[in-house]
């Protein structure tokens, strides 16, 4: 079961309704311009008390690619991701978006720079409908004399939501269903669709398959591939190595807060990833330091 392939091969509609231009949906060329990247981070470090969680990590996410971020518990995956989405500020290093060095103080800042996050707990309001969750914090209002009263333009929101779901081939029974009445896979799909709708360039996903069964995990993985094929860069933190390897274009493995492996998927196997995670021959950043 390999999901890698173009959107056309998968029979999936490209994200024509999304707010990105044609150049952003093209396959990245070898000579990359700043706009080919969702972000480029150089020399990131983060220390909590005496613990060096992240040490001099450089990482980039390209548009249209699925980047898998693996690592054992405590390797620094979450800390790194939180720095990339504005939850933590790095102690050292810089993050560059569109060729500009930027500072993010919240996930909203990251969103303003085109990067959205799908948290492990999905961050959906269970009592609100699919439609309301898709637009929470980004509501569309009626204009004219109703404008001062802040009345929601539900029809317009529904049309945009339908378009966003359709672009990712997500079918839900109704937009007016409460999220709590959806299955786990459907909730994940809504979270991905929301992130995709408000992302201009990249999505960071924390354990997207952690709470799902086998079939639903496969569907969500395919959805992630579709999202990337439509032009967004997607970075996935996961422990589900085999499944994520099937859809990833590139793999980064963190060990003890440092990059132990950064390679295109090529012929990488699960064993290679595990070897890098546990620090076997040639993959331990400390070994590399010693060899120098």
């Amino acid at each position: 079961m390999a999901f890698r392939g173009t959107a056309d091969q998968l029979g999936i509609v490209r994200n024509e309704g999304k707010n990105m231009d044609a150049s952003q949906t093209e396959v990245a060329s070898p000579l990359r311009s700043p706009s080919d990247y969702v972000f480029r981070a150089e020399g990131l470090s983060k220390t909590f008390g005496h613990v060096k969680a992240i040490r001099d990590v450089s990482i980039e996410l390209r548009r249209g690619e699925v980047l898998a971020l693996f690592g054992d518990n405590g390797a620094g995956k979450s800390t790194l991701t939180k720095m990339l989405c504005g939850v933590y500020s790095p102690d050292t290093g810089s993050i560059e978006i569109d060729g500009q060095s930027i500072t993010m103080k919240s996930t909203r800042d990251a969103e303003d720079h085109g990067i959205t996050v799908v948290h492990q707990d999905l961050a959906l309001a269970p009592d609100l409908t699919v439609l309301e969750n898709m637009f929470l914090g980004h509501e569309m209002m009626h204009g004219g004399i109703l404008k001062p009263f802040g009345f929601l333009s539900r029809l317009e929101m529904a049309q945009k939501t339908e378009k966003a779901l359709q672009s990712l081939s997500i079918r839900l029974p109704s937009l007016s269903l409460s999220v709590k009445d959806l299955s786990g896979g459907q909730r994940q799909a809504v979270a991905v669709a929301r992130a995709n709708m408000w992302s201009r360039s990249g999505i960071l996903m924390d354990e997207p398959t952690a709470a799902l069964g086998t079939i639903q995990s496969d569907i969500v993985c395919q959805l992630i591939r579709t999202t990337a094929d439509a032009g967004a860069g997607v970075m996935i933190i996961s422990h589900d190595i085999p499944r994520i390897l099937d859809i990833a274009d590139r793999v980064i493995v963190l060990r003890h807060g440092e990059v132990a492996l950064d390679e295109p998927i090529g012929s990488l196997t699960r064993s290679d990833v595990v070897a890098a995670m546990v620090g076997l021959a040639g993959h331990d950043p400390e070994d590399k330091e010693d060899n120098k």
Partner: protein
Amino acid sequence: MTADTIGAGGLALPASESRLHKILTNNTFWIFAIDVLLIILFTSISINHTFISGTNLQNLMSDSGEGLLLGIAIAFLLGSGEFDISLGANLILSSVVAGLIAIALAPFGIGIVIIGSLVGAIITGLIVGLVNGLIVTRLNVNSLIATLAMLGIVTGVAYIVSGGTDVTGVPVALQDDFGIKTVLGIPLPFVIAILAWAIAFVALRFSRFGLHLLAMGSSRPAAERAGLNTNRKLVTLFMIAGGLAGIAGFIDITRFAATNIAGHTQDSLSAITAAVIGGTLLAGGIVSMVGLLGGVILAVILANGLVVIGVSSYYQLIVVGVILVIAVSVDQLRKSDSKVRLFSK
């Protein structure tokens, strides 16, 4: 399996859930059904059907006004995941302030008296709400504890301001021109309360304000991650609740031309009861404004009807308590999918 099939499987909600099933499992329907049954019962039993007489209907509406205003306040706060049990105390203090202002402004005519005392009551309510909101958001005190503390503080302030006794000597014109005045046969205080209810209903159902309120109650982290300034919104909600309590305080003094400091200590709990009976979730995220109306009416019908048929109104407390337990239990049962499926088999 293709991506097209996502959403096709695993949906917990039966796709063919009938409208009838939805109605029968809805608290609001049952509360109004009980209201109607009680009206029929009390009308049948009461001598000369006095329960349904025009005068008694006016009494019912007058008695509902304050409860409905406090009910709206608590429904908003419960919807956002918060409590306010100081609403009754806020009502008391607001009525004391309104009464004192009315007495002071009496020489300037009834128009000035009404405007002055109404503004005074609303400002008092807003200040109490602001303090509640700041304690909850800035000091991170649970709203139940914060408003429990404020219940005592505000009641104490009311006693100090009033000199330890109820405020009397309020211009009778305030009563005649407002408290017991009717518009097309409907008591003015009830008109104001229904107007407030209608505005609250529309705001909750159709506006961004309502969506954000329910989002905060459904999942505070989700609301925060969506970029909502939850602290500022909570302070606003506590102030709205306080303002509504202030209006209720003003209505109280205009109806009786005197304060009733000892008479409103349980008002917050009654408001919570009315909201929860009507289908508003204590845990937040779901508010039923129509159900709230049914819950408020239920308490008033019981209190009034029992007196009309010659039974002690104390039984009203017992009946409302029993209905509250049943309403919440049925609601919990309905929400448990596994239990519902078990029963359906």
